[in-house]
């Protein structure tokens, strides 16, 4: 995890340098340029992550070659969905369950954080904007306490600042509202892959 974080940070620092240069030369990066840089950063992050994930898979399969079985890897992954909009959980839960995940739905971030203390989820899908506790805080909590959990953020629209903050803090990926259940399934599958699971189609 630390290794990945470092790489992302390096990349973001470079983006910052570009911005600083722009400021020095007296022009501002426009929204489009920044968005472009963000998406570049995101792409970069995804590549790094995929590399790491495949390495992890190789490592795992190597370590299990010694006689272990693959069974526990194929155990159902647990997913937490945290969004203060009840319909999000209501629609996503069956969709993800159909793909073979066990799903728990929360609307209240405080309750969700409490639950995170009791159980280690493999994947957490959380809304960014919530009252009391926002997605970034939940992400920070998870990064601090659950090393193996992949966090997928649901955003209204990814602003550069929020994207950067979330990436630096270790979010696995974003999904922007509005999205379809299938879109989320795809991202969750990717997260599952990175955890060494087969994609569930």
């Amino acid at each position: 995890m630390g290794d990945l974080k470092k790489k992302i940070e390096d990349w973001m620092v470079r983006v910052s340098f570009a911005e600083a240069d722009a400021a020095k030369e007296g022009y501002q990066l426009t929204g489009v340029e920044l968005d472009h840089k963000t998406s570049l950063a995101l792409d970069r992050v995804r590549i790094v992550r995929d590399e790491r994930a495949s390495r992890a898979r190789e490592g795992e399969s190597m370590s299990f070659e010694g006689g272990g079985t693959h069974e526990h890897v194929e155990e159902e992954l647990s997913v937490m969905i945290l969004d203060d909009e009840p319909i999000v959980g209501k629609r996503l839960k069956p969709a993800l369950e159909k793909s073979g995940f066990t799903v728990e739905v929360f609307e209240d971030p405080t309750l969700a954080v409490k639950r995170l203390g009791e159980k280690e989820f493999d994947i957490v899908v959380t809304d960014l904007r919530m009252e009391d506790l926002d997605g970034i805080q939940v992400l920070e909590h998870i990064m601090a306490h659950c090393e193996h959990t992949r966090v997928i953020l649901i955003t209204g629209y990814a602003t550069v600042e929020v994207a950067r903050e979330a990436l630096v803090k270790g979010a696995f990926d974003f999904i922007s509202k509005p999205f379809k259940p299938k879109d989320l399934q795809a991202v969750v599958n990717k997260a599952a892959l990175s955890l060494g699971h087969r994609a569930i189609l």
Partner: protein
Amino acid sequence: MSPEEGTGTSPLDAVSAEAQRALLERPSLSIRTRLGVGLLLWLVLSVGAMVTSIVLLDGVQAKLRIVGAVDRYAFEIQQARRFEKNFFLYRTNLEDALAQAQAAQEILERDGSSISAVVGASSVEVMRARVLRYESLLSGLQGTQPTADTALLRAVEAELRVQGAEMVDEAARLATQERASAETMLRTSQRLAAGFLVGLLLLVLFLGVFVARQILAPLNRIMLATRRIAGGDLTPITPRRRYHDEFSELAAGINHMLNELVRRQEILVQSHKLQAIGTLTAGVAHELNNPINNLMLTAATLQDDYGDLDDAERLEMASDLVRESERARDIVRNLLDFAREREVELEPLDVEEIITDTLQLAANQIKLSKVKVKGEVEENLPPVHGDRHQLTQVFLNLVLNALDAMPDGGTLTISVEKSADRGSVSVRLTDTGVGIPEENLTSIFAPFFSTKKHAKGTGLGLSVSLGIIKQHGGDIRVESQPGVGTTFAVCLPIAPVPAPARMDEVVA
């Protein structure tokens, strides 16, 4: 601005057109005419007094001259009579008496015309006849011898005595009469002078009162009006006097200026409203994401899994679709409602309702900013009088300002209460934001004053808000402690303040 707005038919416009018409349609009686009439009166009075006193003094002079002549005449006659008496007593010569009588006659000849002008020609004729007769009697005597017929002498003596006495009496009467008439004339001219003095005093008094009433009073009222206008009340000046004069022109000019001010104010209000709508739109876009996401998730689920779902599930999803569509509609509706152009319309309003409307409008911003809003509303609040949408705009600006002042969240407390004197309702918005440094406290109400970076603020908000509130007869006060928070207190009068009630205290 919409075309309806362009034609300008707000109540204020109507009032100002009416005031303008009333100001200029009164019968015209200019101050210049009135002052001119006053001065002419003065002139006529003075010239009249002068002329009469000159005439009177002239008369007195003539009388005195007559009195002098008559006195001299009487003296000559008396001398003549003395010599005449001596003649009868001592038989002295009659020459002296005759000379004196001739002198008296000469006096009559010389001054006869002026005397006859005063006492009439007939009495002068009588006098002349008497003198002539006296003379002829004397000269008749001259020839006679002292020893002559004593009876005849006695008859002549008797007639001489009668004529002489008559002449002296007549002269004395004439002198007394003329003296008295001269005295009357003098007294009249004295009275005239006194009367003129009184008239002058009255005229001065009248002119003084006139200047005070006709010039200073309207000036004073115009001054009051300008003070009121400076205070933000832009209702036009309406007439109070029966005539139209230079001050009416001045008032009409001020009204014209007021009209321009109102129009400009409207433009400012409008442009700030657009700015507020811009801010709200960002929040609405954010907030719309949620129902749209719900719609998308639900519709996509229906589409993909239609066959796998049972009827109850499908029905639930369909009702979710309806509910979320309604939610999206509501989110947009408030904003659309606020954004619509409107005529200013004064009505009794529930302040609490306006605050609720405002909070609903700003709901998305409030959610985004993580600010908690608390409300404390007193029971049984009396309604205030005003325009719903303008007041909403004021409170919206204050709420948005408070949100901007708390970038990291905080609490916004809104309390509504009756003022101590029960004449107004005061709304206090207290935030726990950055506060306003002392040196900015006076400038925040100035147009285009903003501390917000990156063209986020136009700086019109508070200036427009204060303008609106002042037009409602209220006021906005601010207290702030940097680092602790800020309180804006909006005071709105309960009584139906605007135009009609205050119109009659107005000017010119």
